């Protein structure tokens, strides 16, 4: 059950990142730049989550790696949203 959740998180976050990246490639708008970056990092966060909690043995802990990715992503998004608003 847990594995299913983590793999689904990884998959859906990758799907979101891909959709946003496609959108950015198509239009090159600033807002999409920051949003797609954010979701790329969130996807990284969720992929590492799956690797950490499902694939790796318990003595390995990637907690800070995956959450640093999430923080970078979210901060980039908030920065982008604030900077691009007028």
């Amino acid at each position: 059950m847990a594995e299913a959740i983590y793999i689904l998180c990884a998959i859906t976050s990758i799907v979101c990142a891909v959709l946003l990246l496609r959108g950015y490639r198509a239009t090159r708008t600033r807002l999409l730049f920051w949003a797609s970056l954010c979701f790329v990092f969130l996807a990284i966060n969720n992929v590492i989550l799956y690797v950490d909690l499902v694939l790796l043995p318990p003595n390995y802990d990637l907690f800070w790696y995956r959450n640093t990715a999430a923080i970078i992503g979210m901060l980039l998004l908030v920065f982008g949203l604030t900077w691009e608003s007028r």
Partner: protein
Amino acid sequence: MKTFMWGVLAMSSLVAALFFLRFWRATRERLFAFFSLAFVGMAAAWVGLAIINHPADEAQQEYAYIVRLVAFVILIIGIIDKNRRSGRL
């Protein structure tokens, strides 16, 4: 330290949700409502993890990750919805 980190994540997620809420009001574009909801969901998941804050408590952790999963699904649904209404699907 972990709680602080989850706080940062939850707060930035809420801020993003508020921006998208504003965008929704300005444009009446439903996609932004979906974005806003998704980020509210992600904030809730991080808050949940902060409350649980017990790596050994796997079972409870799962609920937080389910909320995160729902958030991503909401966003995907929003994008599908946008495509439907634009006549692509």
